[in-house]
């Protein structure tokens, strides 16, 4: 499979040339392999590997003939097709969507298809994702940075991608590999059938895992041709179907993971079981970066069921016969942690530090266009405002946990992770083992949202197992899960606009502190001729990480609120004002119009109710929302949310709708309640009483309309989140005249006067 054919050489050359003309160093060569494996199954893999050996990045990325495979399909002798998928399931229906993409092109019988999550092997690294990064660093999805705690992104680490997040599964793996793998498999099978039956390929058709020769009435299952198919060289670029010919994609297939989630059999990380395992729980330094100063475990040690208590450097671990015993003992351990300047920092200090950074820190450009300062000077009017959002925790429903057994120079690990390969690689590293000696069994995730891209909890389980020699199930309490998160940063954004005589913005000036990813998050979709978007850095000891939709969540709020302010200043309807600024952007206009229609924008509402609107593009999906709010009670209440979205195409429309509903509630929780704040350098909040969630009694009714366009596939898991906070806040403004410039909104008394 590693012989380079003429066709491949040619393709590599073409790719190289194309890359050079784009001014990029990276090239790739895709190739497809077919082989027969044990038991007579046909295995087809789509691989993409570096094509230019002189390229530094390429050399680091893969050595020798190493290939980085992104998708596999297996055809078994009983005619079952198995999709092997390199992404974890955290509820976004990725297993269903990706297998449907494969079945679509392969013409496999989706109903009889098996789905397997790829093990954390390098072969399954999400190379398409990696390549996006190589080609253009700016394209690197934000969650990757979080994996590395915002540190420098080493290229080797980038190659350890097998990450579910950044709404990438369907966009990158699906488009980049599943479709191709399916089409390649079908081509080979048709070719084999043509040879077997001695008929032209063009006279054959594939349908539901069978091949038909209509003229003669011959028909046979795919599996009959597997052996022969494997002897052919797959074409490098199998022909893909046109979108209009799809029969599976674009239909609401029932999700394959759902039945086991209604009868209690779904295995989450928390449900892992090893005979004889002990339970561990931990308390880490509440001020991130500090370590254990002293520990007195004499009382705790004597408690029933306690196996051991350990000072692990920056955390204390208790191992016991059961979780509850471990937790009770942990409470009885007297522990102090080291102190530093950060141990004095309070939430007000964080924002004061940001204000200082605005004055002193070096400004970095995100986008410059036209001449902002001159336009500001000459403008009749300008308008400015400062917006703030707090830190946010992910609050995954399933507290962080992992089960590990380190013994005889090997490690077995069970956990739910958005980053299996990274988790495995880090585990090998801290144990000083080879990658092969670490086995990772992935489980369902009780929520990921970016949190489970960071493997800290799994590494603790590994360390505790290594130290004790016991199989260990580590479970974090809810309190630990809340206080040892990798948070969405608190962000301040100063916005200023020049306003022309028609009330439209002629210049846009934005300066903010804390940038993660993606860089385009702070860009405005509107046609404004002069723009200046910059940020400064203001490092904190608190750990940051990717949080559902990453930087879009705050910038969606800032931009869409400030535009609303400008519309109000201009005395214009905020929906029509946006329409004007989106002239020449038909996808945006269609989405905005659809949301306005679905939300009955023009229809009058009863006293104390009003609507707000917003539109945000994130991860290549455009989503607009119209929120109807009721301010008659103590708490502002979102009564109804109308959401329109264009993701190019929704692979599974019902699944896509569910993702929008989910993103909306997630963002609404943040808008209403989400507030992680520091006191003496530590996170104050601990459980759902002080970090509350939207519940059924304050959840809005949600309607979603999906628009189709011919744009590339966009994400689904995240784009529902950014528009909700601004649409909600804009509705409160419409109802009360009070502009919300900092989140969370809380009760009506907390609404800032603007």
């Amino acid at each position, binding site marked *: 499979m590693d012989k380079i054919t003429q066709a491949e050489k040619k393709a590599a050359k073409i790719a190289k040339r194309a890359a050079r003309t784009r001014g990029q160093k990276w090239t790739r060569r895709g190739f497809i392999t077919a082989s027969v494996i044990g038991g007579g199954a046909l295995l087809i893999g789509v691989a993409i590997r570096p094509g230019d050996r002189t390229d530094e990045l390429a050399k680091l990325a893969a050595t020798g003939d190493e290939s980085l495979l992104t998708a596999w399909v297996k055809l078994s002798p009983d005619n079952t097709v198995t999709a092997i998928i390199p992404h974890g399931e955290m509820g976004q229906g990725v297993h269903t969507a990706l297998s449907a993409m494969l079945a679509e092109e392969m013409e496999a019988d989706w109903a009889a298809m098996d789905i397997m999550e790829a093990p954390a092997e390098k072969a399954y690294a999400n190379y398409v994702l990696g390549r996006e990064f190589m080609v253009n660093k700016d394209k690197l999805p934000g969650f990757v940075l979080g994996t590395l705690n915002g540190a420098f992104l080493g290229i080797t680490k980038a190659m350890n991608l097998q990450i579910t997040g950044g709404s990438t599964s369907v966009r990158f793996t699906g488009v980049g590999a599943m479709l191709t793998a399916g089409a390649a498999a079908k081509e080979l099978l048709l070719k084999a059938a043509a040879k077997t039956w001695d008929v032209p390929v063009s006279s054959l058709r594939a349908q539901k895992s069978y091949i038909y020769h209509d003229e003669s009435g011959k028909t046979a299952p795919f599996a009959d041709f597997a052996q022969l198919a494997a002897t052919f060289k797959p074409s490098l670029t199998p022909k893909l179907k046109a979108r209009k010919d799809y029969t599976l994609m674009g239909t609401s297939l*029932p999700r394959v*993971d759902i039945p086991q989630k*209604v009868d*209690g*059999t779904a295995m989450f990380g928390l449900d892992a079981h090893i005979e004889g395992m002990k339970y561990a729980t931990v308390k880490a330094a509440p001020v991130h970066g500090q370590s254990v100063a002293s520990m007195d475990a004499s009382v705790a040690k004597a408690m029933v069921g306690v196996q051991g208590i350990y000072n692990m450097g920056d955390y204390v671990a208790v191992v016991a016969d059961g979780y509850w015993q471990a937790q009770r003992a942990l409470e009885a351990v007297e522990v102090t942690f080291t102190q530093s300047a950060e141990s004095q920092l309070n939430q007000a200090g964080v924002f004061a530090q940001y204000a200082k950074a605005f004055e002193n820190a070096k400004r970095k450009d995100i986008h410059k266009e036209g001449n902002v300062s001159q336009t500001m000077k000459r403008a009749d009017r300008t308008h400015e405002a400062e917006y703030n959002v707090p830190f946010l925790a992910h609050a995954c429903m399933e507290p962080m946990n992992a089960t590990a057994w380190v013994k005889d120079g090997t490690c077995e690990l069970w956990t739910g992770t958005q980053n299996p390969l990274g988790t495995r690689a880090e585990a090998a590293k801290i144990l000083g083992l080879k990658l092969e000696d670490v086995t990772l069994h992935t489980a369902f995730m*009780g929520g990921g949202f970016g949190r489970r891209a960071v493997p800290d909890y799994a590494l603790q389980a590994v360390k505790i197992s290594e130290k004790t020699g016991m199989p260990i199930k580590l479970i974090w309490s809810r309190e630990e899960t809340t206080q040892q998160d990798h948070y969405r940063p608190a962000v301040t954004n100063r916005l200023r606009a020049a306003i022309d005589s028609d009330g439209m913005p002629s210049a846009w000036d934005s300066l903010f502190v804390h940038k993660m990813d993606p860089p385009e998050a702070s860009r405005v979709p509107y046609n404004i001729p002069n723009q200046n978007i910059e940020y400064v850095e203001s490092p904190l000891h608190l750990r940051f990480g990717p949080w559902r939709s990453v930087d879009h969540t705050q910038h969606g709020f800032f931009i869409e609120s400030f535009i609303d302010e400008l519309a109000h200043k201009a005395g214009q309807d905020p929906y029509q004002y946006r329409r004007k600024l989106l002239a020449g952007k038909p996808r945006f206009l269609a989405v905005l119009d659809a949301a306005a229609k679905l939300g009955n924008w023009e229809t009058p509402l009863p006293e104390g109710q009003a609507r707000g609107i917003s539109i945000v593009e994130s991860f290549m999906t455009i989503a607009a929302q119209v929120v109807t709010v009721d301010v008659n009670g103590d708490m502002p209440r979102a009564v109804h949310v109308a959401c329109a979205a264009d993701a190019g195409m929704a692979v599974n429309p019902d699944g896509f709708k569910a993702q929008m509903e989910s993103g909306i509630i997630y963002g609404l929780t943040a808008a209403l309640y989400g507030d992680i704040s520091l006191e003496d350098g530590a996170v104050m909040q601990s459980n759902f009483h002080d970090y509350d969630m939207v519940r059924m009694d304050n959840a809005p009714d949600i309607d979603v309309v999906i628009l189709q366009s011919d744009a590339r596939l966009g994400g689904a898991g995240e784009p529902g989140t950014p528009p909700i906070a601004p649409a909600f806040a804009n509705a409160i403004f419409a109802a009360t005249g009070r502009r919300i410039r900092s989140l969370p909104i809380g009760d009506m008394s907390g609404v800032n006067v603007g």
Partner: protein
Amino acid sequence: MVQLRINGHIKTVDIDPETPLLWAIREQLGLTGTKFGCGISLCGACTVHVDGQATRSCVTPIGDVDGQDVTTIEGIAGADGTLHAVQAAWIKHQVPQCGYCQSGQIMSAVALLSENPNPSDNEIESFMAGNICRCGMYSRIKAAIKTAAKAA
């Protein structure tokens, strides 16, 4: 020693009677469908039935259920494996996302419908408000409860 009937089977558990029922169910009885979310009765993930009543097992000492009937998510389908009407409605409406909260949601919904076979929207909302779904599937949960109510 605590004796209880779990999903119809009588079991004896040798454990500190202070131990929350949740951990006894998961660790001693090996039934992992019941989940841990908060540990202090704020999220509903650990909901089971004790003598038919929806109960947060994370704050219920196992000693308190001595001699009682406990039902978990594993015990609500028929003996022949037929799904409970609530479970079937959950599939019909494709309710679960990550699925982690859903055992608790289903156990609460079953308890609600056995108490009140035809609940209004308001009654559903207030009964279910103790069950957090971080994935925000509230519209679907509500719709599925109504479907199940009709089916019963």
